[in-house]
């Protein structure tokens, strides 16, 4: 038996284990979910409101991540500033924080007794227990995914092309849309998809910072967790449906992934 053959076998075995670790739980969920009750489940008011709220919150979080994340990614990729490495590390920290701790951090910042709580209270803003709090929680944990992916795309895009466009008389705006945008588009879409998926699945920071109230802060993951207490089968089904939606969205973006 040649060494090479063994190496290959090891590689395949490890890959198969990795695949199994991902697929077996998903298969378990899909098999146990009582698909036949889908219609009944989708007619429950609490489920409908959780679905609507989840799409609104994750959509808003993705948009907010883009608005705040793009300038940051630009700064990291294109502007020479001191301490950039530290800035980059700081910006990815929310990814490693346990989400519950992220929720506490948000409370410590924007809660009634947080750093900015008194100032916010003075202008009549109380964030905890609001839909906006759910959006902020989702943005806090998911924006780093978009920022990271945008930054590397901006690093890889050839600045020279933009310079050429400018020298040919293109306005910065025009050059942005016709030169830069096409080259970062795949990474932008992939980053948006990841960011949105993370925001959609967000649980810990949301329940800690925003609470759990139907129609206001009870997103799908919270509704699933609550259903698990009383109707576990319905919770499984809702989880499986969430999975299907995510697969559809991620698959539709597969064509836009940058080539490896």
């Amino acid at each position, binding site marked *: 038996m040649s060494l090479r053959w063994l190496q290959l076998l090891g590689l395949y075995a490890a890959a198969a284990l990795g695949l199994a670790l991902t697929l077996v739980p998903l298969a378990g969920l899909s098999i146990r979910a009582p698909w036949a009750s889908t219609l009944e489940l989708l007619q429950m008011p609490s489920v409908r409101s959780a679905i609507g709220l989840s799409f609104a919150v994750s959509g808003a979080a993705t948009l907010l991540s883009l608005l705040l994340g793009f300038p940051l990614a630009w700064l990291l990729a294109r502007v020479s500033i001191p301490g950039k490495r530290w800035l980059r590390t700081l910006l990815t920290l929310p990814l490693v924080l346990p989400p519950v701790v992220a929720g506490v951090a948000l409370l410590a910042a924007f809660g009634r007794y947080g750093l900015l709580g008194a100032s916010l209270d003075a202008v009549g803003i109380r964030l905890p*227990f609001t839909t906006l709090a759910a959006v902020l929680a989702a943005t806090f944990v998911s924006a780093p995914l978009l920022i990271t992916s945008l930054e590397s795309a901006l690093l890889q895009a050839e600045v020279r092309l933009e310079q050429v466009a400018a020298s040919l008389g293109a306005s910065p705006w025009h050059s942005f849309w016709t030169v830069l945008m096409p080259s970062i588009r795949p990474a932008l879409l992939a980053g948006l998809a990841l960011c949105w998926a993370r925001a959609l699945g967000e649980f810990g920071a949301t329940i800690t910072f925003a609470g759990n*109230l139907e129609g*206001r802060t009870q997103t799908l993951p919270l509704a699933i967790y609550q259903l698990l207490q009383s109707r576990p089968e319905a919770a499984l089904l809702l989880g499986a449906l969430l999975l299907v939606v995510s697969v559809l969205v991620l698959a539709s973006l597969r064509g836009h992934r940058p080539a490896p």
Partner: protein
Amino acid sequence: MRQPDRAAGKAATLLAAALATLPLPTGCQASSGSRKPAIVVLAAASLTEVFREIGTAYESERERPVRLSFAGSQTLATQLREGVRADVVAVADPEILADLVERDLVARPRQFATSRIVWVLRRGPAGAQRRDPMDLAGSDWQLVLASPEVPAGAYARRALDALGLREAAEARVVSYELDVRGVTAKLRLAGADLGMVYATDVRPDDPDLELVELPPGVRVLAGYGAGLVREAAQPDGAVAFLDFLDGPRARQILTRAGFGTP
């Protein structure tokens, strides 16, 4: 303007308080040299402190390690239905225990303690007149309750019905928590004004929270039940722990923590 170090200290306190509410399995120290396998005890969130104390007492008396895992009673029931490995289970609702017995997941059920539902509110600034929870209907307070699926939420609903305040309360709820400790956490951390918990969830000397009894005549009692998990890996240890729970030492700990004992 707040001083930064005070703010940092506050953040650390908030973090510690939140971590304390996390449902993590916590192993008490195994006595040195003991090779006996640990007894795994699943317990309701509202039993957190008192079971840590009982666990430690059991360990030092019997030289056998106890591992505790806390969550809402309904979550514990789900875990058992899904076949989690455990030896003893203790929940905050006799009906949940009865259901587990009926499903043949738990044996030897017994009630070992009771607690009562009370209001919990944030302490106001010193000297300020204390708010009366019964004024809820005319207030703009943020109320936090346990979700009706978990025992504390079901008891709270019963209490609100008895007080004739259910509608007023539900209009002011900002969050339904999935275990009772979520209620105190939301009052402590997120600045909600009022909640309903077990009298044993907050110590009398708590700096942030105070308890207010329901008016005389409205008394909602929670019964704590424990039993032996059928599939226990350590059935002998589990039975010994249950006997200990019924014994004088555990009763003393429970009574001191404010629980009623049979």
